[in-house]
């Protein structure tokens, strides 16, 4: 531990709430980025699911908005240690999107406009655990927070909830993504504090 600086408190850290190990509660919504914010015109936006057999399922913006939507309220846990509780989203469950997708693939690689990628097991996308969201807190999802649409998979650290999501590739082999190939954990369970490779 470093030298303690007398009187330094840092951001308010609430002790009264149960958080995953090492996390601090925040009331704002920090924006962290690996690059410039992509701007995608909605008439060119699309979301695709590519199966391991080479089939592509595609949705335009209108088609996405026409699908049955849910309004999950979830807690967010960022690997940089902030947690934000009770965040309200609107989006389409991956259960709905995957309904007609024929696949036996175990792994998914999520890719975004701007080039970001992240990987997770297919089973972590299903059974009410993940959504393609387009509203946050009752408003259109802002570009800085991943708009027009981002993946939301709150049981894992927030870097898995890919902003500016463009599609998901279903794969027979695991394909580590942007942060997973730079030292971050391949799975990222906040409750087991899986931040870095080897944790």
């Amino acid at each position, binding site marked *: *531990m*470093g*030298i*303690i*600086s*007398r*009187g*330094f*408190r*840092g*951001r308010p*850290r609430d002790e009264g709430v149960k958080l995953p190990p090492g996390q*601090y509660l925040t009331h704002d919504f920090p924006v962290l980025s690996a690059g410039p914010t992509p701007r995608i015109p909605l008439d060119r936006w699309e979301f695709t699911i590519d199966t391991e057999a080479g089939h592509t399922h595609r949705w335009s913006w209108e088609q996405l908005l026409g699908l049955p939507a849910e309004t999950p309220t979830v807690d967010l846990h960022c690997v940089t240690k902030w947690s934000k509780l009770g965040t309200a989203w609107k989006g389409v469950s991956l259960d709905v999107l995957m309904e007609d997708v024929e696949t036996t693939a175990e792994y998914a690689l999520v890719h975004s406009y701007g080039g970001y990628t992240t990987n997770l097991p297919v089973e972590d996308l299903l059974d009410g655990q993940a959504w393609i969201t387009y509203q946050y807190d009752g408003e259109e999802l802002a570009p800085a927070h991943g708009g027009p649409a981002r993946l939301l998979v709150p049981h894992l650290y927030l870097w898995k909830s890919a902003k500016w999501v463009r599609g998901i590739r279903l794969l027979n082999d695991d394909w580590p993504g942007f942060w997973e190939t730079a030292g971050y954990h391949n799975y990222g369970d906040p409750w087991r504090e899986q931040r870095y490779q080897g944790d």
Partner: protein
Amino acid sequence: MNTRRLTWRAARLVGSRAETDAARTLVFKIPGWPGHLPGQHVDVRLTAEDGYSTQRSYSVASASDGDLVELTVQNVPGGEVSPYLAEVLEVGDEVEMRGPVGGWFVWRPTGVEPVLLVAGGSGIVPLMAMIRARRQAGSRTPFRLVYSVREPRQRFYAEELRRAGPGDAGLDVAYLYTRSAPDGWPRAAGRLMAADLGAHGWPAGLAPDCYVCGPTGFVETAADILLALGHDPRKIRTERFGPTGG
């Protein structure tokens, strides 16, 4: 040249001076400090009692002086670190410091060409280190400083820049105010424009070394103007602070 890998060192506050209502210069003593070049910066790390820690980078404001390092910190409302450094830290308190770092945005007195310094707000800090190092070295390299700031009360080092001593012969300072200029000021308040660098900079034909420092938007604008005025891009060095000090 210091070629050991850098680690965090204890830095004790031994003095401070107010620069403006919201900014002060902090004087740290770091035993074993290897010295630094003007333009370099340090990383400052703060740790709270429960182990939470965070760090920020600050440009060194002073010329190299034994084991003393001066930083000038602007209090950014709502920030996590700057309010602590600008208001809470007292003489005797310690922080951790790593540095000096940065070998590119640096001025050495061995150059022959004139130097243009373009400062946006707190971007003046590393450029002031260059002015102070110039004085310390007895250099006669012609320096021009263009310092953009919201209004006169927000200037750092105002008194020192006004009191041009013999060590500052050949240093010209031009202020430009973006929000509110004094009565009778020849330039109306407004953001940096090509005419400002045309009037107060060096002609491109003199091939000056240009150093631009400040918030990202300011630096982009100033660098674009210098290129448009014909300056060689390889002679323009920039340091962007990012949008906030935090």
